[in-house]
């Protein structure tokens, strides 16, 4: 039996303060939950139900186990006297947030939450909330991580997470499906979900005609604003209505129908077709794939970040050699394609994320610590920057120095990069309608900056063009 005391220092998860029944803390690589008396009782109820075993076996929820000698966890109990028990839970390799997910990721997370509610209902259990942050991704598979949210249903109570579900799942999905607007920036601006008063105007004049929108947006907004001053106590109403699990289940089923019908309708992405339209010849593609594969074989990385992954051609190679591949791209549609490809072909080991390298997710929420910034969430062994440099330098005016500075911040051990010269058709296209204010964008300037911070492992000129591939190793590592 392990005790959290075995490592004296613990770090409380900064985002874990809402639930009065306990909080998450870390010790090294391990994740624990400290529970109050009520939290522990609720956890015991859950563990004693056949539901918990089924959910764990099916990988619907993260695995948890109780730590018996809680009394020895002195450091925590001394600081939080209300804590009476501890559980440990399996660690998620890389935490991601809803504003980094693609459409189908958020949709699958929504359906997972609803399925969990429906299935738990059969055992008399429900979820205390419906936060999208309670879902994480193990590759393409969503998994529920907040075991403390699982509680026995109390007769005469509503679906507690209804509004939260609308704001964190339904509204962002509907925004993309019905209006063609990517939801990611909205969820980043509203970490608690898109508020009703913001969603209603975003829905547009005829949006209410779409499935579920009148009920969940217009009507809910109407009621909300209608009673904001009187704020009636509605607890007794639910009891007098004899509101039951059947009512909750019916509402969840209706919601599931609405969510299932939603599909991404964003205009055809420029980037999603990029891997088919790019200017490489077949021997060049082969050479590039060979170069990447050879160095992954040599490095045997534990994690790879493929920045500007497009539809993930090189992430798919990297997953063969790394335990975890973060496939990040700023284009939601490309990321969605990769996610769907992995899901349909059951390819694990890749976590696709919508992420703009020029503006990675910052720390958000209370004290900017509640949701960690992307760059603070892990240290990769290898970073890929393939066919990305010219976009950063020419489209975004990012100097070479800044790029290598970012790689230093990321603390990657290796970087596999591609230099695309001005003579390349793709760069010519980028320069077609802008003044060439990039006299510094040369191979020699690139190399001179690169070698200040990294040593050369390998350099390879692609056969027909003038593109150059590099495998670089950070100095001092």
């Amino acid at each position, binding site marked *: 039996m392990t005790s959290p005391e075995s490592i004296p220092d613990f770090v409380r998860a900064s985002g874990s303060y809402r639930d009065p029944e306990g909080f998450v803390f870390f010790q090294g690589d391990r994740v624990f939950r400290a529970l109050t008396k009520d939290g522990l009782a609720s956890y015991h109820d859950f563990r004693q139900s056949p539901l918990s075993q089924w959910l764990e076996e099916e990988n619907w929820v993260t695995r948890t186990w109780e730590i018996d000698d809680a009394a020895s966890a002195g450091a925590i109990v001394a600081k939080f006297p209300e804590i009476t028990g501890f559980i440990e839970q399996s660690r998620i390799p890389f935490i991601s947030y809803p504003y980094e997910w693609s459409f189908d990721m958020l949709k699958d997370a929504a359906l997972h939450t609803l399925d969990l509610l429906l299935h738990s209902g059969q055992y008399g259990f429900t979820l205390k909330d419906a936060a999208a942050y309670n879902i994480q991704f193990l590759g393409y598979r969503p998994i529920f991580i907040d075991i403390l949210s699982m509680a026995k249903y109390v007769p005469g109570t509503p679906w507690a997470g209804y509004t939260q579900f609308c704001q964190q799942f339904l509204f962002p999905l509907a925004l993309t499906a019905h209006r063609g607007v990517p939801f990611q920036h909205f969820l980043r601006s509203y970490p608690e979900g898109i508020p009703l008063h913001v969603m209603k105007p975003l829905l547009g004049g005829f949006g209410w005609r779409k499935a579920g929108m009148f009920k969940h947006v217009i009507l809910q907004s109407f009621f*909300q604003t209608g009673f904001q001053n009187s704020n009636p106590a509605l607890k007794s109403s639910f009891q007098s209505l004899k509101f039951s699990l059947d*009512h909750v289940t019916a509402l969840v089923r*209706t919601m599931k129908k609405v969510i299932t019908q939603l599909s991404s309708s964003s205009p055809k992405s420029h980037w999603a077709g990029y891997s088919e339209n790019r200017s490489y010849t077949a021997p060049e593609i082969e050479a590039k794939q060979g170069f990447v594969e050879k160095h992954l074989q040599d490095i045997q990385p534990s994690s790879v970040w493929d920045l500007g992954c497009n539809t993930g051609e090189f992430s798919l190679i990297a997953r063969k050699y790394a335990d975890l591949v973060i496939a990040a791209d700023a284009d939601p549609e490309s990321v969605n394609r990769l996610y769907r490809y992995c899901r349909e072909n059951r390819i694990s080991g890749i976590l696709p994320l919508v992420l703009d390298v020029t503006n990675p997710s910052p720390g958000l929420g209370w004290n900017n610590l509640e949701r960690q910034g992307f760059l603070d969430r892990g240290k990769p062994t290898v970073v890929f920057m393939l066919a990305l440099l010219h976009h950063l330098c020419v489209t975004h005016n990012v100097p070479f120095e800044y790029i290598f500075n970012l790689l230093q911040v990321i603390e990657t051990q290796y970087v596999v990069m591609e230099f695309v010269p001005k003579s390349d058709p793709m760069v010519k296209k980028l320069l077609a309608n802008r003044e060439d204010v990039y006299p510094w964008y040369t191979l020699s300037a690139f190399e001179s900056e690169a070698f200040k911070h990294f040593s050369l492992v390998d350099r390879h000129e692609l056969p027909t063009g003038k593109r150059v591939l590099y495998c670089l190793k950070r100095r001092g590592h």
Partner: protein
Amino acid sequence: MRKTIGAFFIGIILVEPDYALAYIDPSAGGLLVQILLGGIAGIGVLVKLYWGKLTKLFRKEKNDKP
């Protein structure tokens, strides 16, 4: 049933309260939607809630008279 719900909404829209950017209980609207979906009895609860607003409207008019 649909007609009843329709008539009910025409009724409540007529007594729509003032919209103001005050603090909004984030779940009040959600709870009321769930009450409505609770069936006929739920509609009864809502009618009761709106009845207060309706009578308040008439009371106001009466008070306005010199």
